[in-house]
C-alpha cells in the first residue's frame, strides 16, 4: 500500500494518527527503559577503575545522542516547511525544540555528576561537554526566537532558517571545540575506559532506544496540542469528542 504522505500531512488526518501512536511509543519507552536499567544495574559488573559511578553512562550517552539527533530532525522538518510549505512540518519542528533542549540539559547534568567523582570537578571543559553546552544555547536561541515572534507562520519559517544555519554549524562547532581542547589540554580523558563491556554496550543501546521512543511520544503529544492551538477555528476541531464534552 503506497503510503500517501500527503494524506497525513494535513493536520486533520494526522491528529488521530498521532493520538494512537503516543501511548504506543510511551509504553514502548517504559518497557525499553526497564530492560535497559536492568541490564545497566543488575547485569553490568562494577567497573574496576570507576566503581559504580560509570552507570551514569546509561543516561548520559543516550541523552547526548538524542540532543544532537533531535536538532537534526528539527532542521529536517524546517527544511521541509521552507521547501514544500507544509504547515504540519512547521508544527513538528516547534514540538521538537523543548524536548531537544531537555535532552541536552540531561546530558550536561549527568555528565557533570559523572565528572565530579571521576575528575574531581563538575565541569572540566571537556570537548564533548563544551559542544553540548553550545548546543543548549542553540536550542535556547530557537525557543527564544519563537517566543519573540507572535505570528506562528513567521515563527515557523524563521525558526526553520535558524535551525538550518545551526545544523550546518554543529559539526563545525564540535570540530573547533575539539581542536581548541586538544591544543590546550591534550586528548580529553576517555569517559568510557578502554574497551566497552558487551553488557554495558547493550545496556546503553537499549537505553538509547528508550530515550528515542520517549522523545517520539512526547513530541507527538505536543504536536497534537499545537495542532489544536493553531486549528482552533477549524470545523474538524469542533467535532472532536474531547473538544465537545465538558
Amino acid at each position, binding site marked *: 500500500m503506497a503510503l500517501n504522505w500527503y494524506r497525513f500531512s494535513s493536520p486533520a488526518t494526522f491528529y488521530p494518527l498521532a493520538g494512537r501512536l503516543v501511548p504506543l511509543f510511551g509504553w514502548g519507552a517504559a518497557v525499553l527503559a526497564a530492560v535497559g536499567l536492568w541490564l545497566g544495574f543488575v547485569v553490568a559488573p562494577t567497573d574496576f577503575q570507576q566503581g559504580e559511578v560509570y552507570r551514569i553512562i546509561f543516561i548520559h550517552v543516550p541523552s547526548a545522542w538524542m540532543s544532537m539527533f533531535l536538532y537534526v530532525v528539527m532542521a529536517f522538518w524546517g527544511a521541509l516547511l521552507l521547501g514544500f510549505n507544509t504547515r504540519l512540518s512547521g508544527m513538528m519542528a516547534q514540538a521538537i525544540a523543548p524536548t531537544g533542549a531537555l535532552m541536552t540539559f540531561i546530558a550536561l547534568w549527568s555528565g557533570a555528576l559523572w565528572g565530579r567523582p571521576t575528575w574531581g570537578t563538575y565541569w572540566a571543559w571537556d570537548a564533548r561537554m563544551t559542544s553540548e553546552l553550545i548546543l543548549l544555547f542553540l536550542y535556547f536561541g530557537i525557543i527564544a526566537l519563537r517566543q519573540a515572534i*507572535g*505570528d*506562528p507562520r513567521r515563527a515557523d519559517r524563521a525558526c526553520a532558517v535558524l535551525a538550518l544555519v545551526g545544523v550546518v554549524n554543529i559539526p563545525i562547532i564540535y570540530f573547533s571545540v575539539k581542536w581548541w581542547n586538544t591544543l590546550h589540554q591534550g586528548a580529553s580523558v576517555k569517559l568510557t575506559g578502554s574497551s566497552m563491556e558487551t553488557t554495558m554496550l547493550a545496556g546503553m543501546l537499549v537505553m538509547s532506544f528508550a530515550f528515542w521512543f520517549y522523545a517520539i511520544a512526547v513530541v507527538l503529544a505536543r504536536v497534537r496540542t499545537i495542532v489544536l492551538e493553531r486549528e*482552533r*477555528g477549524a470545523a474538524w476541531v469542533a467535532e472532536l469528542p474531547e473538544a465537545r464534552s465538558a
Partner: protein
Amino acid sequence: MLEVHDLAGRRGHADLFAGVDFRVPAGGAVVVTGPNGTGKTTLLRMLAGLSAPAAGEIRLKGHKVAPFAPELRAAVAYAGHLPALKDELTAEENLSSLVRLAGGTAGPDAMRSALDRVALGRRRSLPARVLSAGQRRRIGLARLALLERPVWILDEPVTALDAAGIGLLATLVHDHLDRGGAAVLATHQALGLEPSRVQSLVLGG
C-alpha cells in the same frame, strides 16, 4: 493584466477576508475601500508579492505568481504606507537611489526634471529629514513617474498630500491607465478617474 482568484487573508488567528475575486485589465483600476482593519493593506501587500495569501492565487498576465516572484517584482511598482526615504540623503539622492534600485537609470537631468514636476525642484538638495510629510510623499510620486512599471499598487497614496498633490497623483494614475497600465489603489479619495475604468472593491462588507 492581474487576476485574483478566491483570495483569503489572515493575520494570526483572525481571518481578514476570504473569497476575493477580481480582474484588473490593462487600462483598468481597482479601488479598494473598507473600514480600518479589514485587510486592505494585507491584500495590497499580497498583490505586490510581499506576503503569501492564506488561500487562493494571484495571476500576472495569466501566469500564477508566488511571493517575490521575479516577474512580479519586475512588473509591479509598490508604494506602501511609508515613503521609503532615508533621512540622511537629499531628495535627489533618495530619488536616484530608489530609481536605480528598481533597475532604472537615474541621470541627473532626469532626476531634476522629475523633481521639478512634483514642485520639489528647489528643495532637491535638502536632506529628506527636513522635508514635510507631503513633500516626502511627492518624491514617491516622482519615482512612480520615472519607473516604467505596468502594474501600480498604491496603499493610501493620498496621505499627507495637499490639493495640488492629489491633482498630481490623479494625473499620474490617469496617464498610467491611458498607457495601458493597471492599478490597484487603497484610498477613500475620489481621484476623478472615469467610472468606466474603475472597479470598486469593498472589504469587510
